[in-house]
């Protein structure tokens, strides 16, 4: 039994096929009387390392401790704390994405994950929008790349 076409999408067909041990052929049986449900607002999502819908800033650990921010309200940069909501983020349980308080769009690797640039974009929960917070890094769930300040340069914008 497999997820057709290995596409982790809503309403995706389920089929049978020859076994290949892909993740799309792997399933957990969870008995309903043991199902814990999903974390609610204010609860920790242990798997993703963030509290559901609790606001946070992303603070670079480089010397100036700049905050993750947006330029042109779209692209990721680091900036000195300025109180704008483009510097405030939250974890959205339903989509498993990190969203901005500016307009509720989600972190997104540009071009559906084919580049290294980060932006905010309408939520679609593609793999290129889903990150875990692990060991003081934000790690993409599929390509395992981490959020990185380009060139390691601790400069404004």
């Amino acid at each position: 039994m497999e997820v057709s076409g290995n596409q982790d999408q809503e309403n995706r067909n389920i089929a049978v096929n020859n076994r290949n041990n892909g993740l799309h052929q792997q399933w957990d049986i969870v008995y309903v009387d043991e199902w814990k449900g999903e974390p609610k607002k204010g609860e920790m999502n242990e798997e993703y390392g963030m509290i559901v819908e609790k606001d946070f800033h992303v603070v670079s650990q480089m010397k100036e401790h700049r905050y993750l921010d947006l330029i042109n309200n779209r692209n990721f940069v680091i900036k000195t704390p300025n109180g704008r909501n483009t510097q405030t983020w939250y974890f959205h349980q339903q989509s498993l994405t990190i969203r901005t308080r500016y307009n509720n769009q989600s972190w997104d690797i540009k071009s559906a994950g084919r580049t290294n640039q980060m932006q905010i974009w309408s939520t679609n929960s593609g793999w290129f929008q889903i990150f875990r917070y692990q060991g003081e890094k934000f790690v993409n769930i599929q390509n395992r790349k981490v959020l990185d300040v380009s060139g390691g340069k601790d400069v404004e914008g």
Partner: protein
Amino acid sequence: MDKQTKEATEGINEEFGLHINRPFYMRSRLPMKRIAECVGANNVVLKRWRNNVRAQQWYFDGVSKTIKNNYWKSHSLDIQGNGASNNLRCTTTNSRWW
């Protein structure tokens, strides 16, 4: 005269690896961890978990030896076209190999 043994109505069926008549979710291990849901007593598709939606719940029926849907209880997992295709459906129980 020999008596026919009754089919178990609870406990685990060791051969099939499932508890009898105990509803469960089939949760994909893909990142979103979506659930297999029977839609319209027909297709089986992947969907986000929703509270108390019985079309997302399944159980092993010890009598028919099939995996039945907990909303359409007369329907079981079924390979479409009498097993001739790859598509999985949720259709009236017939206990054939597919």
